[in-house]
């Protein structure tokens, strides 16, 4: 079921890293995906399938391209001047880099949570209602219900239900991050991208986020970038190891951590470099 590249092909710097899924429902299919900032190529021929309603972790040393990759899935990199993508990323079989893709509706289907929590300088309520409102929802009752539902899903409702109209900045760091998750859930995405969502949080807040990820995968396809090996092991079903802009190995999380095929993967997950 798992295929990985051999090192000779990797070193030749030509062949794509090929990892596809069999017997599994791929939500996101990446084929020969290259990405460059100006003349600097940061992703080389990425090939992988991300399964529906599972958690896929992207790991690898700093600068390996995992963040660039996750930001390619909702075309967040479009805002960077001179950025260029080649190859395809398909969601439900439709290429999101095709000319007829509407980036705005793509981003409503593919939510994102950032490394640094970024609540808007508005009330807790208005933060959650932001996405639905720009989507055209005006009905007060519908909005109230949606805000409540999203906060419950993000396991934040009980902590904030009595102060929905206070500033979002009054929340603690971990609560702010869960608010950002709730805000992303409020537009009802299918895919949730998380770029190191817990890297700025203390262990207790991190545990809460991880439990939340575990709950959310029933309904959402989750892709998470993490620097924390234990976290990848705890929350993810599948893990992809990136290095120097290439996908080195992609398999069940258990396999990656217990029985990796590649020497490089083993060295990385056992902490020999990083």
């Amino acid at each position: 079921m798992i295929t990985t590249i051999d090192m000779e092909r990797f070193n030749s710097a030509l062949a794509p890293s090929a990892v596809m899924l069999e017997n599994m429902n791929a939500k996101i299919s990446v084929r020969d995906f290259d990405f460059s900032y100006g003349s600097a190529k940061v992703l080389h021929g990425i090939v992988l399938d991300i399964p529906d309603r599972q958690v896929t972790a992207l790991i690898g040393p700093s600068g390996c391209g995992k963040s660039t990759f996750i930001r390619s899935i909702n075309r967040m990199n479009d805002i960077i001047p001179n950025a260029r993508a080649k190859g395809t990323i398909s969601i439900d079989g439709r290429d999101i880099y095709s000319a007829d893709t509407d980036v705005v509706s793509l981003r409503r289907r593919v939510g994102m949570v950032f490394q640094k929590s970024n609540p808007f300088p508005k009330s807790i309520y208005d933060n959650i209602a932001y996405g639905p409102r720009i989507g055209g929802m005006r009905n007060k009752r519908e909005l109230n219900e949606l805000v409540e539902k999203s906060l419950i899903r993000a396991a934040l409702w009980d902590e904030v239900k009595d102060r929905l109209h206070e500033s979002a900045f009054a929340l603690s760091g971990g609560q702010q991050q869960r608010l950002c998750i709730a805000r992303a859930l409020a537009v009802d995405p299918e895919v949730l991208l998380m770029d190191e969502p817990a890297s700025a949080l203390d262990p207790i807040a991190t545990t809460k986020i991880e439990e939340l990820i575990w709950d959310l995968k029933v309904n959402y396809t989750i892709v998470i970038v993490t620097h924390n090996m234990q976290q990848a092991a705890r929350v993810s079903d599948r893990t992809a190891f990136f290095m120097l802009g290439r996908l080195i190995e992609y398999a069940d999380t258990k396999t990656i951590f217990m029985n990796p095929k590649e020497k490089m993967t083993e060295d990385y997950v056992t902490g020999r470099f990083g």
Partner: protein
Amino acid sequence: MSNARIRKIISAIAESLCGLAVLIALVPLVLILFYVVKHGFTSLNWAFFTQMPKPVGEVGGGMANAIVGTLILIAIAALFAVPFGCLCGIHLSEYPASKFSSIVRFAADVLNGVPSIVVGIFAYGLVVLPVRRFSAMAGGFALGVLMIPVVVRTTEELLRLVPPGLREGALALGATRSRAVFSVIVPAALPGILTGILVATARVAGETAPLLFTSFNNRYWTTNIAQPMASLTVQVYTYANSPYEDWIRQAWAGAFLLVIIILVLSIIARVSVRRLERMNRP
């Protein structure tokens, strides 16, 4: 002498020089305020606010028309400069590196340094000459031109201080670029932008030169912006240069009132900023 002793002496000298510099900077301010308050406050009376100027030679009367005139002129200036300046600042912060932006930025900085009398002449040529009549509109326009560069640069600088994460957050929720700017980025910078606008308003409220040949002066009551209009600054200028003791007394009162107007604008700026910032801070 030991090293430590020398160091302490040098430190003491440096400290006293700094203190002296502060004193020198504060003395004119304190003196100005002292004289304005001393002469101005005692010259203020109810008639000053409610009555029109009396004919030459008669004692009494007030500056009701000039007070209202100044408010109207400031309003015209703000109505013209604020939308224009803010949109311009938004453009600069959204396209910071474009050639056009750097030209606009340079132009705004040059305009900021242009003497206000030159701006007055410009408004005279553009608004007064074609209709051959002084008007409040021309005066408001001149003040607005003076306000624009300040509003543009404050707006730009404050927008660029907004953390880029907010923009990404909005875009990731499916906001278009303009939506992200107007619903998240501008509101985040709004307290600071408002302060900038009020500071710019306070600055032009005290301008005399650009009004001398635009709104000119008017001894009669008018709220018609197509007519010449009195303003506190020009009235103070006229009265202070007169030989009549009562006019000089009223000039002091006018100067005092100007200081109060600027003070009130600054206080409004501070209070409104604090209120708006409550959403930005815990």
